[in-house]
């Protein structure tokens, strides 16, 4: 049987793409390695009775157009915002944060319009007056060239710290280095918030929308290669040795993995090979899921139970951890962001008890003394527990689960466990990301969705959505 389009990966991008393609009448199949759809939009039981989304609590925003077009609200994806942030005991006021996040959303929306080819959007503020169209790089503005500390310099210290902590949760960056302001955009201060029931609800809503449109979602089915005929995508090879014939494919794997693991290297043009090899990925996130015997006591306001608590408060804290990360060392004090996810969502913990998630940044994918061993995990667990004790002194732990970058690589197929799909740097962001042909790739019939797309770190679902649009357009033009 021959499909019009095959999509690799049933994450939010894959599912959004599938829905769009199927709605356009294309015979569409989604191939997923894991046992269920959702990708990072999953929620699992990590201790009897305690559930949490293992990979992230919140994602970059789902653009409104996609959200309403796919009818996600009716399918149960209800977001509630997380307005409060606590930095070393101080609560960051929401007004400034909201204002700054609105600025971020505007910038993201602008980039999405540009990526979607909808409008020739001029750059917000061109960086170099001597940079002209003929220099073929994406327009660079303050976001690309300032340091995060410069970008936030005019804000009150607590607000600036809150934005920094939120932007750098799970990331590795030195906020005093130029170019680090990009982390304010990606993975996105624009996040719509936390989904009731965990990210699985969003995953299920997306999958439901794709299925209703007529797409076929096949799980436990890992794509291992792309076969070309006359230098066009012809079929997807699966781990079980079978093949799925298809006229086109959208890969939601990162650019590096797409090019280097799905093709015979001899089949790739040299320039593509070089580009993929030099595409930089950098894993930095660890997640610690904790089951607590009782809800931690909040000293003051009960509303604080829904806040996010950050352990790092100054640029120096991050710079210090970043230096450790660069040399492959587990930082003494990894920047940690803690949330009592069950406080606003009773489905995640038994009554009276609590589920806390901790996102740790500056955690190396490869350690200087080799691979992650049980001993290394023990070291990180101890440091995470110290952060927990400092935030919630009365916490009694019933059980926990720790995920380090290699676990993300294993579960999500993200190279180096990099959840952003590639290092966040001016030469790898916006139009400079992955391949200049995007949403197409140098391989005819292959499209790139997923985190390595220009919109990948900025929005959830958008890159799949835009890749699907390009595929449909090419088909209409007879190129497919």
């Amino acid at each position: 049987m021959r499909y019009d389009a095959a999509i690799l990966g049933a994450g939010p991008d894959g599912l959004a793409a599938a829905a769009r393609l199927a709605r356009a009448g294309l015979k569409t199949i989604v191939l997923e390695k894991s046992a269920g759809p959702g990708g990072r939009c999953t929620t699992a039981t990590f201790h009897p009775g305690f559930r949490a989304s293992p990979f992230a609590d919140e994602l970059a925003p789902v653009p409104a157009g996609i959200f309403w077009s796919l009818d996600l609200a009716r399918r149960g994806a209800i977001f509630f915002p997380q307005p409060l942030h606590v930095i070393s005991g101080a609560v960051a006021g929401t007004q400034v944060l909201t204002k700054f996040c609105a600025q971020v959303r505007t910038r993201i929306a602008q980039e999405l319009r540009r990526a979607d080819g909808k409008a020739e959007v001029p750059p917000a503020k061109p960086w170099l007056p001597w940079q002209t169209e003929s220099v073929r790089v994406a327009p660079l503005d303050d976001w690309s060239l300032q340091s995060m500390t410069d970008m936030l310099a005019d804000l009150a210290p607590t607000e600036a710290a809150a934005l920094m902590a939120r932007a750098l949760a799970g990331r590795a960056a030195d906020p005093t280095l130029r170019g680090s302001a990009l982390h304010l955009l990606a993975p996105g201060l624009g996040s719509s918030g936390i989904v009731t029931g965990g990210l699985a609800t969003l995953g299920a809503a997306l999958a439901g929308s794709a299925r209703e449109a007529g797409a076929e979602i096949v799980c436990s089915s890992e794509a291992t290669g792309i076969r070309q005929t006359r230098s066009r995508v012809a079929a997807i090879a699966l781990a079980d040795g079978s093949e799925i014939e298809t006229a086109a494919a959208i890969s939601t794997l990162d650019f590096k993995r797409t090019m280097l693991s799905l093709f015979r290297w001899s089949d790739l043009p040299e320039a593509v090979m070089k580009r993929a090899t030099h595409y930089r990925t950098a894993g930095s996130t660890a997640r610690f899921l904790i089951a607590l015997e009782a809800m931690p006591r909040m000293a003051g306001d009960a509303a604080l139970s829904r806040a996010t608590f950050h352990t790092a408060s100054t640029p120096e804290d991050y710079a210090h951890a970043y230096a450790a990360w660069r040399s492959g060392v587990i930082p003494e004090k990894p920047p940690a962001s803690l949330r009592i996810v069950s406080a606003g969502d009773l489905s995640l913990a038994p009554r009276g008890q609590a589920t806390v998630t901790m996102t740790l940044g500056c955690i190396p994918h490869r350690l200087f003394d080799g691979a992650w061993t049980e001993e290394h995990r023990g070291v990180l667990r101890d440091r995470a527990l110290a952060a927990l004790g400092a935030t919630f002194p009365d916490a009694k732990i019933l059980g926990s689960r720790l995920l380090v970058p290699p676990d993300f690589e294993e579960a999500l197929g993200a190279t180096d466990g990099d959840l952003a799909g590639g290092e966040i740097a001016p030469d790898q962001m916006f139009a400079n990301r992955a391949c200049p042909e995007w949403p197409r790739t140098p391989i005819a019939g292959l499209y790139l969705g997923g985190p390595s797309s220009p919109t990948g770190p900025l929005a959830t679902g958008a890159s799949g959505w835009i890749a699907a649009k390009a595929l449909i357009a090419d088909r209409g033009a007879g190129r497919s």
Partner: protein
Amino acid sequence: MSDTFDVAVIGAGIDGLTAAAYLAKAGKRVVVLEAQAKVCGLCGSTELRDGFLVPRVAQTLYALDPQVLKDFPSVQRGLAFAARDLAQVGLGEDGRVVTLSRDTNETVRSIALHARADAQAWPSFRAGLFRLARAMRSSWWTGEAFDPDALSSSNRATFAELQTMSAAAWLDSRFESGLLKATLAFDAAAGSLLEPGSALPLLWRAAQEIDGVQGAVALPRGSAGALAPLLSSTAIQAGATVQTGARVARLLVDTGSVTGVELESGETLLCGAVLSSLSRRNTLLGLAPDAAPLALLRALQRIPVRTGTALVTLALSDAPNLARGEAPLASRYIVADRLETIIAADLAARAGRLPDEIPFEIVVPSQLDGSVAPPGSHVLTCLVRPVPVAPPEGWNVLKPKLTAKIIGTLDRLSPGLVPDIMAVDVITPEDIADEDGVQTPERMIGPWRARIDTPIAGLYLCGAGVEPVAAVSGRAGRIAAALVAGKP
């Protein structure tokens, strides 16, 4: 009592003296105000002990402005080179050596010992860099506006890469050998190698020339400090007045315009214009805090200069043998094993710590110039960077640590060197007291005007911080002087 001049130049450094020479030649009444007791106290040379002559800040010359030499034949005549074109030699941890010289075949052979692919990539890398660098000269040398559209398409592509990529990413995309990359990157190590545009200093270095040789690094006879006294006497001959021990306390500003300077001694000098060879920050924050716009002062305060350069000089009773005969005698040696060594050192220095492994550049001037050390003895100088500018521990504590680290490394490179050491001196960023400002792409490609002008009318900057990359050049002094002399 007060004197009246057309122009007061603050600082008798290379650029201050150059500016004074040009202004005096143009018929202006110029006074140079030097805080130290001696002209070229910081940019000249000093005797480490009897008969051992060492420079104070710069150990080589690579950015000298050819126009200055042309305009002042006395400087040109006085300046002699012990070596015009030092080879760049990378020294690895385990005795590996890579030699980058003007001889492409030799260089390719040397690189091939480490990585065959790098040896293949070298000729086109170097040719491409030099080609683009030549095209950039018009804006870097003359103050013309830079027009990227005037570049050829291959130059444009390289330029676009250099603008957006970090030096680390750019070198990683070109080469495999860590030693080769670190050796190249050292010349850009005044800033972080992780920031966008951080490879531009390599392009700027490639655009410079010494005696008509592009990208050359030269060693003047009588130490790299030999240039300053030549410029000083030239300026005086041209008619400039030089006052030493004259530290400027503040600028006199009247309704947004400079009217003169007040010295720490209480003396005031009236003048129509002031050229400061201090950094923008030290000039505005230190000398005119009431006259500059508040927003600018805040912005200047916000960007702390965190990393700097130290110079460690040694007097030796015997010749060192750094590359075990694997490199030409006329070499500068870079001690940095991998890119990560420089990156980690920068992150540590920014945090105010002395890095575990410190990258540095070694020159042994006495091997090429008998005049700087007694016969049989030697002078070895190490340019160490990045080091913290204001470490919390204080430089008094860090100085012996730094010295121990450098001597430890030197002993590993040239076993048996320690007993030969007769004297050591360390010049820290604290001793230099002024800073060169932050290395940014705007500074590197932006117009000279923007770096020279200040919001105070009649106040101009002319120091090393005005250069696209801080260096001993004189160009900043020449261009700033032209700007001032052009005014009625």
